C-alpha cells in the first residue's frame, strides 16, 4: 500500500519480512515492537494470520482487494492502496477517536504480506465491483 503509516511501522514490516524469510518466525524484539506500535490489535492480527485469514482477491481486469475473515467468521474487504475497513473498530478507534493507526484486519493484511501467508483467490470483475462497493455481503 502507498505509505499511510509512520516510518517506524514501515521499517517494522520490512524487518519482519526479512527475519521471517530467514527464520520462519518473528523474534521477540519485533513482536514487542509490533505491540508497542499497534497496541492490542497486534496479537489479534497475528492470530488472524495464523489462521490464514487473509486472502488477496484478483479479478481478470487486474483489480485486486484483500478479504479478511474476522474472528466471528465475517468477511471484511480492504483496499490495496489505502486504509479502509468496514469493521466497527476501524470506524470507532481509527476514524472517530484516532486511537489506533489501523484495525486488526488491516494489520493482518500487512503482516500476512510480510510473512508470505496471504491466500490467493480469483473473482470476476462484477464480483469485485460488488465487494468494493460493499454491496455484496460476503
Amino acid at each position, binding site marked *: 500500500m502507498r505509505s499511510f503509516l509512520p516510518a517506524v511501522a514501515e521499517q517494522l514490516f520490512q524487518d519482519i519480512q526479512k527475519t521471517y524469510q530467514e527464520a520462519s518466525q518473528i523474534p521477540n524484539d519485533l513482536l514487542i515492537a509490533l505491540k508497542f506500535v499497534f497496541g492490542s490489535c497486534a496479537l489479534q492480527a497475528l492470530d488472524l494470520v495464523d489462521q490464514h485469514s487473509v486472502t488477496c482477491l484478483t*479479478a481478470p*481486469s*487486474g483489480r485486486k482487494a484483500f478479504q479478511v475473515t474476522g474472528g466471528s467468521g465475517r468477511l471484511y474487504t480492504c483496499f*490495496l*492502496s489505502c*486504509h479502509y475497513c468496514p469493521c466497527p473498530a476501524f*470506524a470507532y478507534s481509527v476514524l*472517530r477517536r484516532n486511537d489506533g493507526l489501523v484495525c486488526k484486519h488491516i494489520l493482518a493484511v500487512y503482516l500476512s504480506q510480510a510473512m508470505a501467508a496471504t491466500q490467493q483467490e480469483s473473482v470476476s*470483475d462484477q464480483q469485485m465491483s460488488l465487494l468494493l462497493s460493499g454491496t455484496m455481503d460476503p
Partner: protein
Amino acid sequence: MSDRRKQLFSYPRTVEELLQQVASLHEPTNTSPTPPSLIIVDRLESFLSGPGGSSQSGFHPGERSCAAHIAALLCDTAAFLTQVLEQRGSSSAPCRIIASFLSEVNAGGDPSGTDPILDVLDRYFQVRCTLDQDSGYEATAAAVQEVWHIYLSGRGITDPSFTEDYNDRPGVAQEWKLFIFPDGLMEFKLV
C-alpha cells in the same frame, strides 16, 4: 492533432449508487478504449447526510465510515486506473480525483469548529483546496459582489511527488483572492 476524450456525466441518487459506479470503473466496459484519467465527484456532502440530514451537533456515526469508504474507494480506483494508463503507455496518467464538499461547520461563523468529515477526507486526499467567503469590508471597498479566499493545504503540498508535475513552474502558488463583480466577472489575484 486533436485529443478526443470522452466525458461521461453520471447522476447517482444515493451513496450506494455512487459506490457501485466508482467500484465498477475497473470493469472492461469502463476501461475500453481508454480508462478515465480524471474523476470528479461534486457535492460529496449530499451523499453523506445521515437520517434527517447532517447537523453540526451530532454527526451520524455512520457518516465518518461512509466518508472513508467513498474516499478510500476513489483513491484505490485512481491507483488502479493509473496502473492501467501507464501499462498502456498513455500520456494521461496518472488518474486524478477531484471531490467537492460543502462543510456545515463554521457556517455560523465560529472559526474554531472542525468538521469531522473533512478530517476523514483529509486522510485520503493529498491536497485540500479551501474556498472561504470573505464577509469583511473588502468586498464593499473593492465594489465587488463577493470576495473569496482560496488556499491549498495538505500533505501533498510538501510532498516532492506533488511538485514533480510543476517542474517548469517552481514555487507553485498556494493562495489566491477571488473577486466576483456584479456583472459576473471573476478575477483571481495571487496572495
